[in-house]
């Protein structure tokens, strides 16, 4: 797997590169700003780009902009946005346009075991990645006449993994059940919550997230 790393803080960048190379992933370029990133992606077309949400020149939303532009101009390149923000609004901004092959991960745990590498593998395969911390936080919110209470513990678990962006196969592996079981759970959850959209589509992660945010 060929990856570009875009991060302006040297220590963090070195850490990320180190973690990736340890896992046998080839880092073909390291860049420190938005323009450098876009240029490299266009000229060298990597499998994935690991992008800091804040970069020069303005240190505001370069990561979000980069994710959108890469997905629009070179859709085959997977984009993983690393962020310090817990707000699900940021995750929505990043994923909204093109959820497939896009990820939003908190920086806190990227050095933790295989989290970063796993996330990269998943987006390169076309899945979506939403940081579990964000999903847990959303699931934990109180709601009036909470429809989530009508879900079984297993269905809640499935919903949480759907919101994290896992495919049915990913969920099946995680829960050690068959894909058909997962499929049945997902259909039940979508039915119980009255969620729009097909449980099979790429966009189900957005439907699940929007539901949890509302």
């Amino acid at each position, binding site marked *: 797997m060929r990856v570009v790393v875009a991060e302006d803080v040297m220590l963090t960048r070195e*850490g990320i590169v180190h973690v990736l190379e340890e896992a046998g992933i080839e880092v073909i370029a390291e860049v420190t700003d938005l323009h450098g990133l876009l240029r490299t992606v266009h000229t060298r077309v990597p499998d994935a780009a690991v992008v800091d949400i804040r970069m020069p020149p303005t*240190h*505001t939303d370069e990561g979000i902009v980069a994710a959108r532009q890469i997905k629009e101009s070179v859709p085959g390149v997977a984009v993983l946005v690393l962020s*310090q923000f817990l707000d699900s*609004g940021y995750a*929505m901004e990043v994923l909204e346009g093109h959820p497939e092959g896009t990820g939003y991960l908190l920086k806190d745990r990227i*050095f933790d075991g295989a989290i970063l590498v796993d996330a990269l593998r998943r987006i390169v395969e076309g899945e979506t990645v939403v940081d579990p911390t964000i999903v847990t936080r959303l699931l934990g*919110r109180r709601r009036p006449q909470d429809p989530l209470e009508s879900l079984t513990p297993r269905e809640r678990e499935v919903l949480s993994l759907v919101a994290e962006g896992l495919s049915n196969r990913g969920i099946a592996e995680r829960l050690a059940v068959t894909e058909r079981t997962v499929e049945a759970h997902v259909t039940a959850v979508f039915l119980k919550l009255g969620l729009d959209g097909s449980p099979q589509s790429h966009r189900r992660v957005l439907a699940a997230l929007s539901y949890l945010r509302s």
Partner: protein
Amino acid sequence: MIVDASPLTSVTAQRLRLSMSAAVALVGVACLYWVGLAALDSLDSTFVAQSMWHMAAVQIGGGVLLLVGLTFSIVHPNRVSGLVVAGLGLTWLAPEVAGWVGGPQWIRSAVPALGVMFVPLVLHLGLAYPNKKTNNRLNRRLIALAYAVGIMVAVAVVLLYEPLLDLHCWRNCSSSPYVLVADPGLSRAMIRVSMWTVVGLSAVFIARALARGFSKPSRGGGGASWWLLGPMVALAVTNGAHCLLMLDRRRVDPSDPMLAGLVLLGGALLTVVGLRIGWDLVRDVRRRHRLTDLVSDLETGASGPLASVLANLLRDPSVEVAYWIPSLQRHIDWRGSGVIPSTGPGRAIATIERAGAELGKVIHGSRLSADDLEQEIGAAARLAVDNERLRAELLAQANEIRASQERIVASGDAARRRLERDLHDGAQQSLLALSYKLRIAESESRRAKADNWESALREATGEVLMTIEEVRRMAHGIFPSILVDAGLARALESLKEESGVQMEIEFPDQEFGVATSMAIYQLVATVVRAPGIGEGAQTSITGQAADGRLIVDVTVDTPVAPPVLVHAVDRIGAVGGTVVSTKTGMHVELPCG
């Protein structure tokens, strides 16, 4: 320049009006008589008899002047110009009356005296009109002198000229009842004296009229127009030439083409003068009507800003009024916003002054000169200028205060934003790098089977991660960067996410500008964090953007104590918005970029 007129006391004004009305009535009767005579006269050998053109020139010239003069006196009872104009018409027709063969001798014999008065009247009208008072002291003295000389010569002519003894007498050769000393030489001399008087006064007038026409418009009054001065100078030239010709020819001969031509020219010029003054009169009447409308508008409060009133008055929609505010050292418009009066193509600036100090400027697109503009808008401006200027000044000061509030808030926000960024990009990133190093150390120690080290390092990693979490919370509290990165709607959703308060959000997903977004965010944040509003509280936020304004309604199921909201409300005030408490919450309106 618009200068306050000193008001006449009502008693003086009344007396003046009465005496003027009497004078007007008298002149009117005389005029009717005159015109009647001139029309009925058996005019076989006068100038009028020369051709239809001569007839028209003499009768129309005099008639127009009489008509305009009388109307002028009725429209402007306290201005003398009307009488002067009527007098001109009267004296112009005088020679025709002298030729009225069947007329009473006492009138026919007095007529030559009237003819002498023609030039003083020309002098008066030409040097004073359209002002009520002549501004130039020399001109004022010349007018008085001309009248004095005219009257003296007229009296002398009446008392010493005996037509019966004049070999060259014209049309009226009967003995005058007024003559004191009848002597042929003296009679002839009187004719010569009166002719030279006319020539002399005409020359004086021409000189002064040209000086007036070419001088800059004077303060406090309208300037002379060449449309009037030109014909009057030509008239004086014609009149002077006529008298010189008479001195040369010695007798009046209507069939003399030069004399007849001069009469024709004189009549035409008088007609122009009369029409010109008549035009002014029509304009005055129309303006007076518009001013009456304006006054009633001002009374009913339907007039709008002075600029639109003036636009109406001048029929020029581009009029702008800029008030000079000495304390701010700049011009402001009626809304209190700063403006820089500037002329463009076809635009002119007139300064409104009082006692030499500038009140403001009127920028307009009409071709009026500053003095004409003063004539047109003086009264309207006087009615409204002070009131509106005061209001504009207050508005400007309020704007100033609001702008400074806005700057204070904006600079505070900028500082908080910088701090938030420093925390994320500095402290948090360093902690992240530290966590990375700790993990490497942790795996090294695992490889070296140093168990005690491994657990200590894992613990340290956990603490660093908690500190990162802490820094994240602090940074978010300092400035909600999602507001700038993802917009107000997303920021409100994130507020709902972190607070656990039930919040129905209906908000357009668009840019409102940082200051406006921040003000709304702070208000909602204050509400959801207020004491007594915990998890499970019900709120709703509805936003609508229209015409550059954002209207937000906030409803809360638990009332929020007003003191808690003071800062949030101040912030909204600082961006020019308002907060109104409603039964169920708050109604907020504020401008958005």
